[in-house]
């Protein structure tokens, strides 16, 4: 297959939008390679949240006065932008949460634990999930007697799809999978996974925390039933997340939080819920966060998600090539950048990932080390920990080169 055309974003122009990237770390240039944990924020997003507080702060949906109308308009406007960003049919299929974690818990609780799942029903996950797509399903197992099954990962970092077919039965009710792994970078064939889930009458829940920031998503094309992601990993504020759900599934899902906003009427001892998605948004929401996320989506849309993906493929390919040439350095996940995102886990012989991260920190380079909230995957690969570099729109080849130079320093220290 032909290599996609080389698409490199105008990184200096993008960098200029990110105030934090102007700072130094102990007199060294800041090389931020931890966007998989959280991304940096452009001034457009920072300004949008501060603008909300300084110009039209008011609670949403309840106020009659002008300020409240403005805040409600912007909050709902953000919902519309997010719906368009992932090709949802309607903004009513978008619920605001605080994070991917809350979104996945909402599905596990509202659709699983309080909903359709009966004793003996089966939930199929994968070995490569983040803890936030494992633990909520443990709750469903513990409280409802559901049976959990897992698709294994091959040595090359891709899912064992043949095994997936064998795991599906007429008792399978939920299949839950990440669109992109936060450790291996693997992009999973979610469209295919959802199709086969639907063939046995199961729904497909998608953790898009590492995908939504980095590649185009079309929930209708994927035919995902639920899809979760976090604002803070895609240039948005912390404390705001999204749960997409097909209208009819949203209707069939119980709320996680009871309180104001999520009700139609309340009587002593009983209540009638509000329409979707409002029934999932009990209490005063993170208004500034939602508005900021809307602006983050504007920012990404203006660049174009195809261009974002193309840019990251170029850097990832470059970095993987350079790392492959270093003796004593291993990288994990697919080697083919068409099958992976810009998340690069690596280890260095003789140096613990924490020491790698500490030494890179001295050089001003931010990478993560540890189990990356994916202990079952680390066990599968027999790794106590890895170091992880991840790329985004504000990174370029210089950053990849800085990483390689930093790794050489680590090797000198531990030689």
């Amino acid at each position, binding site marked *: 297959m032909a290599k996609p055309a080389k698409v490199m974003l105008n990184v200096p122009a993008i960098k200029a939008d990110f105030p934090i990237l102007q700072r130094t770390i*102990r007199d060294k240039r800041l090389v931020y390679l931890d966007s998989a944990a959280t991304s940096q924020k452009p001034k457009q997003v920072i300004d949008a949240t501060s603008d909300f507080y300084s110009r039209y702060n008011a609670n949403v949906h309840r106020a009659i006065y002008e300020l409240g109308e403005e805040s409600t308009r912007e909050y709902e406007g953000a919902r519309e932008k997010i719906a368009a960003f992932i090709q949802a049919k309607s903004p009513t299929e978008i619920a605001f949460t605080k994070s991917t974690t809350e979104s996945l818990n909402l599905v596990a609780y509202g659709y699983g634990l309080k909903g359709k799942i009966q004793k003996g029903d089966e939930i199929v996950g994968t070995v490569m999930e983040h803890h936030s797509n494992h633990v909520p399903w443990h709750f469903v197992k513990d409280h409802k007697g559901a049976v959990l099954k897992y698709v294994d990962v091959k040595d090359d970092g891709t899912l064992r799809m043949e095994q997936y077919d064998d795991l599906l039965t007429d008792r399978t009710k939920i299949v839950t999978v990440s669109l992109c792994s936060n450790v291996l970078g693997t992009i999973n064939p979610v469209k295919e996974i959802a199709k086969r889930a639907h063939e046995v009458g199961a729904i497909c829940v998608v953790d898009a925390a590492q995908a939504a920031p980095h590649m185009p998503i079309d929930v209708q094309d994927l035919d995902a039933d639920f899809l979760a992601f976090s604002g803070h990993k895609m240039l948005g504020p912390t404390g705001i997340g999204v749960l997409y759900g097909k209208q009819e599934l949203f209707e069939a899902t119980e709320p996680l939080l009871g309180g104001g906003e999520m009700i139609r009427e309340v009587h002593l001892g009983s209540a009638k819920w509000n329409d979707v998605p409002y029934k999932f948004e009990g209490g005063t929401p993170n208004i500034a966060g939602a508005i900021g996320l809307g602006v983050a989506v504007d920012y990404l849309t203006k660049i174009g998600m195809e261009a974002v993906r193309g840019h990251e493929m170029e850097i990832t390919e470059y970095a993987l090539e350079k790392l492959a040439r270093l003796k004593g350095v291993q990288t994990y996940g697919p080697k083919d950048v068409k099958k992976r995102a810009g998340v690069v886990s690596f280890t260095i012989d003789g*140096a*613990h*990932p*924490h*020491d790698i991260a*500490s*030494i890179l*920190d*001295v050089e001003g380079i931010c990478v993560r*080390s*540890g*189990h990356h909230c994916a202990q079952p995957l680390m066990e599968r690969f027999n790794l*106590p*920990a890895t170091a992880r570099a991840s790329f985004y729109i504000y990174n370029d080849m210089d950053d990849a080169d800085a990483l390689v130079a930093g790794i050489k320093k680590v090797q000198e*220290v*531990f030689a």
Partner: protein
Amino acid sequence: MSISYDMYQEQILDHYKHPRNKGLLAGATKNARDSNPLCGDEVVLHVKVDGSDRIAEVKFEGQGCAISQASASMLTTMVKGMPLSDAEGLGRDAVLKQLGIPLSAVRLKCALLSLHVLKLALGQKADVAT
């Protein structure tokens, strides 16, 4: 404290690459294990106390970063032969002084894990790592 290569001074790397008192200890009278959930660093201590309430033997097992493992190795050399009461009185400052390197808040947990495990082995409750 400044964060620099000082963290990886020769004596730290030496203890990391050539750990002292590493392994199992037959006839250990006190054992404890703990890990640092954030990093997965793990230290196990085996202590043998003799008739005159002295730490006659001490060994450690573990895996993790240079700081946690070097600190465990150094701690064993420090407490071997020590009266139990002295070991019980051992505080974080003594351990950090022996390490003698600048540490960030996160790495402090790595450095103090072995002291924490020693306290567990001796049946003390003090949470030294926080």
